[in-house]
């Protein structure tokens, strides 16, 4: 059983790693982000499978942290990728380069 679960974890990882080719090819930022998100989900799945296979329940905590931080990083990506940040009108900067 443990071997089966490890094999599936490896399979899922291989799949999402293959998906990373999208990070290489793009073309849009959105495509790259999607590949990263798929990798995040696949990594979480692999962690859960390894937790069951190697009998290390603490790995579920790692998956939990990863799920939370992954969401955070993805939002930061979307914000950064789509320039949705808006300056205050009274922003006090010497030069307003590309803000």
């Amino acid at each position, binding site marked *: 059983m443990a071997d089966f679960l490890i094999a599936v974890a490896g399979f899922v990882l291989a799949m999402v790693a293959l998906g990373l080719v999208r990070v290489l090819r793009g073309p849009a930022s959105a495509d*790259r982000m999607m590949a990263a998100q798929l990798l995040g989900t696949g990594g979480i799945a692999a962690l859960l499978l390894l937790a069951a296979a190697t009998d290390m329940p603490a790995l579920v905590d790692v998956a939990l942290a990863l799920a939370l931080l992954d969401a955070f990083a993805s939002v930061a990506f979307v914000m950064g990728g789509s320039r949705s940040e808006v300056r205050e009108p009274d922003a006090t900067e010497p030069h307003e380069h590309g803000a």
Partner: protein
Amino acid sequence: MTMAMALDSGLAVVVLAVAGWTIAARGTFAAVVGFVSYGLLLTLVWVRLEAVDVALTEAAIGSGLTGALLIGAAARLRAGEASPVEGPGVVLRLEIAVLSATVAVALAIAVLLLPDPAPTLAPAAAENATATGLGNPVTNVLIAFRAMDTLLEKVVLALALVGVWSLAPDRVWGGYPGPRHRSDPHGVLAFFARLLPPLGIVVGIYILWAGADHPGGAFQGGTILAAMWLLVMMAGLTDAPPVSRRWLRLVLIVGPVVFLVVGLGGLWLGDAFLAYPAAHAKPLILTIEFAMTLTIAATLGLLLAGPPERKLS
């Protein structure tokens, strides 16, 4: 070749491929996406090395916060990327490649020649675990056996924040850090930023609490709390506090101060600086961890928010 060995070899290949991509990628954004993926894969590598505490730290800081930091910087620098700067020429590149490869090969040889019955402090850590009453050996090392490292590392965090703040122009000193973020208050991002933080705070405190006996602890819990705070700020639901606020300054130093007070108390009641009196070791350590979590969360959040950019109105 067993199943586990196949998994590990495959993982190593993918990790190196992604590492190569982050160096070779043309666009900055593509490189940063590669780096975040790299951090995630490293988390799995740490799991395979049976270092679950490190895996948690890598998941939280290495991939999550560093990714957010770099992508934020890349977005603000985008205007500057229009004029690409010439890198070194082909010959120089080749020389640098040879140099880097030499370093890598030397390290690889060192890894292959590591002494065979490997020196280890694990038995010593196991023997002395009863002194603190904590079950997690890594927390024991961090907070008791090598407490000085951890204390000084908190000071490094504080110094980094002082360094970031000192980049503020004089006019805005004491003001609000970073740009103010705005989003549609009824949009999906605002909804998400209202829903996730309560869950994240529960998980963060759980990880802090679990750190006594299982993988987890102050860094990992504090990082999750910082990420939740940043999420609320990014969605524009709240602004970052002005850096001159007294309560903020207090939160930023409470961790090291509690640590120092307990450490000096060890000089008085125990045997040495940072020695915990045996009877009260566990409650003292938990107090330090709790105070440090607050400080770590605030410091990491403000490090990402950046130097003050807007005047105190």
